[in-house]
């Protein structure tokens, strides 16, 4: 949890210096950017040193990309939240990063305000679901009778979760979803976090490959 007086400490990982500079300038005083890294190795050591609240993580980088950073940091620094910020919204990238443990995924065309809001939501423990990500998840968890479900708890979405995802995919905001489903915003957040957890822990290990095969974008 963060208190409002202290700006969020954000770390940028992207191999494009221009883009880092741009994001830093756009975020301005909304958050405090505590460091940058251009490579996976640099990111791993710097994040460990700075211990930021949120890491903005690029997906495509040389020597492993964002996924390598996530996998290296997740065990040693579980309190650091990761928000993927990528130019790609290919299903294999999105699903791959989320499954590796990112708390959200936004594309680089996002506006500065929306990015700041997403950072805050991730820092507060919520998940950032874009409509597109919701679509991918719905598709990935769609009933496929040919696939054995090894853990029914995790490998299926409840009807409510499905409804929430659908509304997200339709472009609804949390508060609109809450109104539509007659539930509280807190409940919506819980559903979304549960979906994220299922996505990350589900035994459908083939999810990302499945998405890649289907070439879902």
């Amino acid at each position, binding site marked *: 949890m963060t208190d409002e007086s202290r700006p969020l400490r954000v770390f940028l990982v992207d191999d494009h210096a221009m883009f880092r500079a741009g994001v830093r300038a756009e975020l301005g005083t909304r958050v405090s950017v505590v460091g940058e890294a251009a490579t996976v190795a640099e990111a791993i050591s710097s994040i460990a040193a700075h211990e930021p609240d949120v890491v903005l993580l690029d997906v495509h980088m040389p020597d492993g990309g964002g996924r390598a950073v996530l996998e290296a940091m997740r065990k040693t620094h579980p309190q650091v939240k990761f928000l993927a910020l990528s130019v790609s919204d290919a299903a294999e990238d999105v699903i791959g990063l989320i499954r590796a443990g990112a708390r959200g995924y936004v594309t680089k065309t996002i506006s500065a305000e929306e990015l700041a809001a997403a950072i805050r939501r991730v820092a507060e423990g919520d998940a950032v679901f874009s409509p597109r990500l919701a679509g991918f998840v*719905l598709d990935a968890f769609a009933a496929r009778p040919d696939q054995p479900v090894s853990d029914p708890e995790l490998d299926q979405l409840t009807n409510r979760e499905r409804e929430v995802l659908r509304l997200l*995919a*339709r*472009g609804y905001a949390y508060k609109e979803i809450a109104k539509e489903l007659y539930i509280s915003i807190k409940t919506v957040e819980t559903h979304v976090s549960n979906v994220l957890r299922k996505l990350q822990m589900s035994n459908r290990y083939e999810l990302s490959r499945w998405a890649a095969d289907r*070439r879902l*974008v």
Partner: protein
Amino acid sequence: MPATGQNRRPPIALRPPAPAPVPPGPRLYRSTNGRALAGVAAGIAQHLRVPVLAVRIAFVVLLVAYGLGAILYAAFWAVLPVDRSTPPSRRDVGQLSALAALSIGLVTLLGMAGWGGTAFLIGLLAAVVAVGVGVIWHQADPDRRRRMEDAGVPDVSKVPVLGALSGALGDRRSMILRFGGGALLVAVGIIGLVVVTSALAGAQISWTALLNGLLFALLAVLGITVVFGPVLWRSVGALRTEREARIRETERAEIAAMVHDQVLHTLALIQRNSGDAREVARLARGQERSLRNWLYKPTASPAEKLSAALEEASAEVEDTYAISVDTVVVGDVDVDSDVAALAAAAREAMVNAGKHAGVDTISLYAEVEPEQVSVFVRDRGAGFELAAVRDDRHGVQGSIIGRMQRHGGRAEIRSTPGEGTEVRLYLPRRSDEGTNKESGHD
């Protein structure tokens, strides 16, 4: 090839050095033009300026003279270079089969007349051996491999023996097959020769002699393999590397062409319009979309898949109204007249949002479920009073609600002034009935 592509050609030797140019003149070639077998007859005919049929008949007739025709043909085939100045044309199979029938007829006739005798048989067998050696020799010619590559296609048609077989096989397998075929011909010929000569000498067929003959045949084949094997192997390797390089080059050229045609032009336009933020955004969005499609998406036809149809419609709306459409499609379905109507209604809803909502972004969400297809078009714009506009707004009444009803679906419109509009379209799926629905006037 675009201009940009040529400056940065990677330093890969894409082709082996071209064979030395053959001096023009009345030289004797095998002709790829109008050939029936290996082009020997056609080449000789061109060289001598006589009709090709005459040369072929001469070969067939010479076949009778102790197989001389076949021996000569194989010899010519082995030594004559192929003329590549004229493009290869279709082979003349009709004539080939006629001549084959003719030669078989001739040989049979002679055999029945008893005229051929043993010497004739020996000649024929020698011809078989000659043809077999010709095949092997030909196969082992490294220059030939290069020619095949230059032609860009595995040139299985140049060797008639087993040529038909090899068309369906891989390049190397066909080569081995033909090589083996040649060896088989040599072996059969030599066995035959030994048998016939033994019979001629009145002796019993000597297995030792047969074995000796076979050994000699094997030795000959081995010799040719040893001499040409390494060269052949290298050229096959070079051929493979070259093919891979060419594939890479083609891909790179395709990327270069796309970047040149689209990205560079868009960037140039953006520079010229840098004062007009809306126009710049529109150009950038269009370019982003097309690059994304190019990078991640298989090209489905909008006439075939709902997802592609919706993507196309939202791309049009994006370009026309300079807004961005967040398109999410879950599942997919083939387009029939009903689904096409659904896509058209969705397009109309997006157009309405683009025209009237006054927003930068609208959402399009489509989901294909087992029992129905639903599409949602949502904006957070001006909104309107449904009751006030429902009857006179053609776009809504005719193009959305009416269209959905005609196709067995339904449309709901929810709008609150100040909070935006959502159009919901539902189409039940009737997989059994197929596309028997009247398509209305879409």
